[in-house]
């Protein structure tokens, strides 16, 4: 396990945790009290732009030859905005306070194959509550990859880089299948009957998405149908690759800590904040980059305050950073290439069995070996 010590961070005392939690609560309260016109105008503007990109993308396919590349670009942007800055954030309830059913976490459905209600359970509840708790957070390796040394090695994991590559290519399908808990099915911890309901919901959504992108819009473009078909596929692919890269930079770069279930028993609010902070990593970049990443480039702030509107994360980030420095805690951030490199190394390293460490040794017993990731 990449324990807190392994990441070069220190443990906070109970009093420190309480004070740390109180400072985070104060940020939260201040932002909640300030929510208003600017936040609603922002998200309405993003929605408007997303719809415009979508319509432009669909329309440009009618322009033979020269229209194709811009069409794919527009549709990719539309899908990325829809899934990330709008979908992911709306489904976190970030805009529920506006009282607009179109932007309500319970009603929103996004433009990919994963049904929103299934995603909300595995993401909002399981992942955000048990972030980086081994054995609890199914987002650690998504049940496919080995991303932590406490996941027992098996020859299967030699394929780690290949699985990661495939997951990237088919990311929306990976996210959708995630809820079926295939790994638990294989392990016999879950039955096909448990999945019947989920499977029905999933198939319904898959059919709708496929009908739109791979049947109706291609048919509507008449003789250009094959080009539209391929174009829609490429737009989905671009979104998959982009989302995978942004999301993998959120929890798997070097220096991100994981936690044992024992550490998190009867957890205080302060420790929850502490765990969210040390279990997440940011990506630096410009304004457009942050919007296109759904502000998940501020994964730390997102994990501290998952239901605050994402446009607030950049302003919160400065405060969080300052608080971290006072408590002597690392604030994990870096440019995209650096964070991706860290993720890539982890994927490759955990493909191989652990070096030197005797199997009998307990949890978190090998801090010296972890230096590789630093």
């Amino acid at each position, binding site marked *: 396990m990449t324990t807190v010590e392994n990441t070069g961070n220190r443990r906070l005392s109970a009093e420190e945790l309480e004070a740390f939690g109180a400072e985070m609560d104060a940020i939260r309260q201040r932002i909640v009290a300030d929510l*208003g016109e600017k936040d609603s105008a922002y998200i309405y503007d993003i929605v408007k732009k997303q719809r415009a990109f979508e319509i432009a993308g669909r329309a440009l396919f009618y322009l033979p030859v020269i229209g194709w590349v811009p069409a794919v670009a527009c549709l990719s942007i539309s899908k990325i905005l829809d899934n990330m800055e709008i979908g992911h954030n709306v489904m976190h309830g970030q805009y529920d306070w506006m009282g607009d059913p179109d932007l309500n976490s319970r009603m929103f459905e996004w433009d990919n194959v994963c049904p929103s209600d299934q995603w909300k359970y595995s993401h909002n509840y399981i992942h955000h509550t048990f972030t980086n708790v081994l054995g609890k957070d199914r987002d650690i390796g998504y049940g496919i990859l080995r991303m932590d040394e406490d996941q027992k090695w098996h020859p299967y994991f030699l394929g780690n880089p290949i699985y990661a590559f495939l997951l990237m290519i088919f990311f929306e399908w990976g996210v959708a299948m995630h809820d079926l808990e295939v790994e638990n099915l294989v392990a016999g911890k879950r039955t096909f009957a448990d999945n019947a309901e989920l499977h029905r919901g999933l198939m319904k959504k898959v059919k709708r998405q496929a009908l*739109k992108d791979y049947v109706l819009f291609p048919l509507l473009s008449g003789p250009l149908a094959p080009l539209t078909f391929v174009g829609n596929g490429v737009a989905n692919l671009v979104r998959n690759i982009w989302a995978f890269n942004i999301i993998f930079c959120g929890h798997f770069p070097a220096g991100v800590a994981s936690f044992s279930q024992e550490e998190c028993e009867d957890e205080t609010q302060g420790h929850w904040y502490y765990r969210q902070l040390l279990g997440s990593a940011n990506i630096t970049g410009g304004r457009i980059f942050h919007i296109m990443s759904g502000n998940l480039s501020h994964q730390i702030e997102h994990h501290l305050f998952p239901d605050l509107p994402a446009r607030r994360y950049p302003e919160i980030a400065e405060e969080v950073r300052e608080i971290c420095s006072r408590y002597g805690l690392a604030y994990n951030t870096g440019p995209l290439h650096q964070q991706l490199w860290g993720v890539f190394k982890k994927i490759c390293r955990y493909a191989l069995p652990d070096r030197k460490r005797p199997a009998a040794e307990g949890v978190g017993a090998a801090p010296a070996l972890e230096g590789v990731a630093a």
Partner: protein
Amino acid sequence: MALDLGGRILRSRTVAALASPHGIDRYLTQINPMLAAHEVRARITDIHPEVSAPGAPRVATVTLQPTSTWRGHRAGQHVTVGIDTGEGRRTTRVFTVSNTEGKAGEPLTITVRAHDDEHATPYSISKYLTERATVGTLVHLSQAEGDFVLPDRVPEHIILISGGSGITPVMSMLRSLQRRTHRGKVTFLHWAPSADRQIFADELEEIRHQGHGVDLHLLHTGDGAPYLSPALLEKLVPGYREVPTWACGPASLIEAAQAAYVGTESLKVEYFKPPKTAGVAGGEMEFARTGKTVANDGATILDQAEAAGLTPESGCRMGICFSCTTNKSSGRVRNVLTGETSELPDEQIRICVSTPEGDCSVDL
């Protein structure tokens, strides 16, 4: 015809499939909010003050031109109204449609009394409508709902009873009866605090003068008029218990009416505010998601959650709009509108009209 064809295309399954998952209305609204295939929106075309007596809350009748998707309303029905009242927030409340029953796409009116609403920020929707809204303001509507309506064949003699703002559905009924040229007899009893706070005063005066089978009694309690009682009803309408009656008003009036008609099936009622009757205090109210637990004080779960500092989603606060529907994982709750209790685990309940009875846990 052309419009109708357009509407049929927009509502077709093909268009729905193309616009999936957001729906065609999400695109149409970007062009013009008054274009819709399924949803109902409206623009305010007139705001007419009804009461502006000094010291009394303002009352206004707001006329709305709905999108072509509005399916019309029957006299006595209500509609959920959502308005962006500022600070990026949309407030949603339920109002009775006050004009004569109308067909699809026809204008409708709602009559609104301004009152404060601690749960709506920055303005209560009634204050916004009576003080700040202007002609042209966009309004989000539901379809007309509710079964507090006149039957298609109206009995020979009916009684209409209303109190305060509860006059609105009854007024819609009265107006519709007049348009339908109902030949029978209508006894209309209305309670208001005083004459200068009387909504629709001029129109009622006209109805009184015209007669036409309407026996009108305006009872102003501030001027010493008696309150609703079996004796009063018997005096005004001998044998009233056999006469089909519609009553709408505050909880006290409805309860008095129910007592007067107990044992009969003549009475249909509509609250315009849910009864404030507190439930039974005792036990623990747990909000499982936020991990908060409070002592159950007998108030609705919504009120208790808000008192505990939570901000659950809510709309009408009277059990109509279902915005506040929440999963109750365990415990027994009472529906304050019907008095029914239920204790099924993992049940979807409207927390605005549910009070816990003993220990209760909800996913908030």
